[in-house]
């Protein structure tokens, strides 16, 4: 961050314990990008074991030591730690903080013309609860027994079977921090969007991105408390001898378990998925918002069906609360419940189809610029499409019988979150980087990053559908134990190599991100010739954001308005 001017508040208040939404947004962005890189690193190690289950990993043993390896072989418990922590880190420390904490914090107040968030100190608190939560998670790798190793879903009784290991306890404590952080953030977002919109900015003039953040905040606010409660209950099961999730008559490792009993393991699943399904939409909605902004800007025409987009997002948010048990079709659920959850699951696909259709139709009749943000946003569309479509066989209980808990599921949700959401988040970084830094990112490096990412992401995840259809269970340390796993082992190898190449494909991005801070082309307020309010502020915006308070005169995407001299009519410019 080279070109910030130095004045009154002093370094600590300005860059560390800052209450400025832009600084907090950048803190969130940088922190979550580092966590994403770390979580990706864990996965690249897992991919070594998956591709070469009997391989000699002495080079990894030298790094990680005896806790994870014996004689060059990776231990299953280490593999399980990598898996559980990869999921946790990517979702709770990477994507959500980047999409909401990063982009939401930085862009949303600017887009509504506000000088800051409604509660700046709460905003600061949110980051400073998030960071310790993340550090607690990381620290769990260094305790005896290592980090949590029961999957990111942490199903009891398994998650309670080794109370002597601190890893899972730290995981739960970390989760409580992260959830608290999200709750603080979401209240702030809602109040800010309701209260701090600038004059003239009615709800139906809000940029689609703001709508997406608005609904996302409600999801976080309403869905996280049950998981926080569940997390505390599991914590009590571990440290205080309660048995919320532990039934009677357990015999673990040949010995009767020392628990009071009377609990129910399925209760955890209900509480967990009551959060974790809306959570999926927390991951997707901000991404859809970003894609909407980038597409409108680079087609130079209004988004198709703005109102139906908004209504769809609201409906999606509502529906996301009543589909959770489709994660539990195989728990022995009765007919009535399964019919209900299959029906809601099919219903929720409708607004998703409408949104995707609207975004695709928005391209028709445009004058499409293929810059780096647009390439990422365009790639999002088919990738998210694959993610959504492959959800169908999982959403119907009958077809789920064969595919549940196989690699098909992993392929499905990764297509939603990785080639889907992550592509959109990259689009957002390239799109708003000039606003945040006053400089453009390099176009050539950006395109290199885009093509590598697109190709190798598909290389990683398409094989998983083949593995899943073949019946390979997820979370297997060595799938060649099974005959049907052996048959598709080649696909696993291809997936692993794609993952490693995907890592290499991120190098241009990392270089670009840092080098452009100094070497990027300097830009003015509105380099993309965009219409929304963040482009009325200087790049980067000063404390308080706008040099004079903007007024909004029109909708968010007035591009190519007939009779105007320019092909964009910003919200903040009064027509003569």
């Amino acid at each position, binding site marked *: 961050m080279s070109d910030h001017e130095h004045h009154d508040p002093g370094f600590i208040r300005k860059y560390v314990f800052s209450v400025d939404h832009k600084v907090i947004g950048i803190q969130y962005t940088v922190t979550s990008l580092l966590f994403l890189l770390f979580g990706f690193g864990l996965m690249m190690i897992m991919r070594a074991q998956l591709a070469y289950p009997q391989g000699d990993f002495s080079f990894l043993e030298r790094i990680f030591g005896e806790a994870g390896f014996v004689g060059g072989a990776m231990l299953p418990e280490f593999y399980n730690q990598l898996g559980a922590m990869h999921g946790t880190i990517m979702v709770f420390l990477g994507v959500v903080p980047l999409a909401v904490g990063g982009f939401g914090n930085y862009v949303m107040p600017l887009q509504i013309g506000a000088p800051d968030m409604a509660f700046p100190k709460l905003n600061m608190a949110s980051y400073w609860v998030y960071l310790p939560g993340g550090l607690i998670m990381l620290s769990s790798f260094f305790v005896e027994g290592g980090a949590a190793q029961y999957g990111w879903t942490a199903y009891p009784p398994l998650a309670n079977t080794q109370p002597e290991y601190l890893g899972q306890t730290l995981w739960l404590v970390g989760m409580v921090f992260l959830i608290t952080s999200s709750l603080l953030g979401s209240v702030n977002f809602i109040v800010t969007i309701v209260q701090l919109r600038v004059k003239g900015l009615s709800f139906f003039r809000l940029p689609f991105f703001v709508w997406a953040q608005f609904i996302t905040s409600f999801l976080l606010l309403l869905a996280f408390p049950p998981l926080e409660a569940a997390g505390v209950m599991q914590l009590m099961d571990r440290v205080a001898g309660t048995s919320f999730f532990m039934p009677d008559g357990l015999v673990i490792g040949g010995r009767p378990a020392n628990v009071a009993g009377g609990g129910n393991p399925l209760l955890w699943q209900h509480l967990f998925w009551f959060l974790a399904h809306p959570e999926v939409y927390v991951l997707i909605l901000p991404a859809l918002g970003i894609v909407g902004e980038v597409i409108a800007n680079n087609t130079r025409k209004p988004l198709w069906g703005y109102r139906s987009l908004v209504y769809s997002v609201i409906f999606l948010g509502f529906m996301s609360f009543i589909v959770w048990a489709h994660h539990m079709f195989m728990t022995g659920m009765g007919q009535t419940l399964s019919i209900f959850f299959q029906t809601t699951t099919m219903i929720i696909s409708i607004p998703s189809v409408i949104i995707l259709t609207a975004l695709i139709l928005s*391209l028709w009749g445009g004058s499409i610029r293929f810059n780096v943000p647009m390439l990422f946003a365009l790639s999002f569309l088919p990738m998210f499409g694959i993610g959504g479509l492959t959800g169908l066989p999982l959403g119907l209980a009958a077809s789920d019988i064969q595919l549940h808990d196989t690699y098909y599921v992993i392929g499905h949700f990764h297509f939603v979150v990785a080639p889907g959401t992550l592509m959109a988040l990259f689009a957002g970084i390239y799109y708003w980087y000039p606003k945040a830094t006053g400089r453009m990112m390099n176009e050539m490096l950006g395109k290199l990053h885009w093509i590598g990412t697109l190709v190798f992401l598909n290389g990683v995840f398409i094989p998983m559908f083949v593995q899943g259809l073949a019946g390979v269970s*997820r979370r297997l340390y060595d799938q060649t134990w099974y005959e049907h796993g052996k048959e598709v082992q080649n696909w696993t190898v291809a997936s692993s190599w794609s993952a490693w190449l995907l890592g290499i494909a991120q190098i241009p991005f990392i270089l670009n991100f840092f080098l452009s801070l100094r070497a990027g082309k300097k830009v003015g307020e509105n380099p993309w010739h965009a219409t929304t309010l963040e482009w009325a502020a200087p790049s980067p915006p000063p404390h308080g954001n706008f040099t004079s308070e903007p007024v909004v005169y029109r909708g968010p995407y007035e*591009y190519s308005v007939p009779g105007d001299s320019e092909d964009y009519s910003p919200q903040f410019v009064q027509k003569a």
Partner: protein
Amino acid sequence: MDFTLLDGLMPKDISTHGYQIDRLLEYLHWFMLLIFIGWAIFLTYTLVKFRARQGHKASYDEIKAKPSKYAEIFVVAFELVLLVGLAVPTFAYVRTDFPGKDKNPVEIRVVAEQFQWNMHYPGEDGVFGKTRPDLVASDNLVGLDLSDPAAGDDFVVPTMHVPVDRPVVLQLSSKDVIHSFFIPVMRVKQDVIPGMSIPMWFEATETGEYQIACAQLCGNNHFRMSAQFYVDTEKDYAAFLAENAPGGDDEEEEEEEEDE
């Protein structure tokens, strides 16, 4: 059935009900493929036709997208038909349509534990002996109460044998954590949850040797929590029962497959 899209990708199906699941998967994947190709064509055409270039201007007006309305109605109608016509009836059949006594089903209790499957057969009398968790020991893996007269002819083995062309009813339970009982070729999967006993049924149509897999993460050795699964002819099945029936002394048929 003329399955083409998923043939070769899925394991073979040796169950009586599996064709219903495979059919649903087949229709779904054709549908997905169709939509995806539709999108891809539209996307490619649009990106070429409306690329920014000299003399080309974006139009402000929204296109009237009748086709998209039709496409959405098609999607909704298709999902509705699959849901009501195939998915719900199939799941109901698999989950609730248990074979009656007249079909003479084979009954087996499956007791899962980290990291093995224990198959508890009721023996000649067809009645399961009582089990108690406090009786579980290394030589009594399911905690069989031998003071119960019904327990005398019960036996427990680490592999599953079932006869071909005869329905099988399983009662699934777990001693410790959640497992998931999955036989890919049989198109069955059921979570096994401690504290619950969950019934499940299937009927095999082909003899052979296959594998039971665990589908739910259950600990370090989850990856090798498999069991051999044999579909026998009636004759072979009878031989299996006779071979394992406890003779003079009751409990010699325990597995040796302890933690290696």
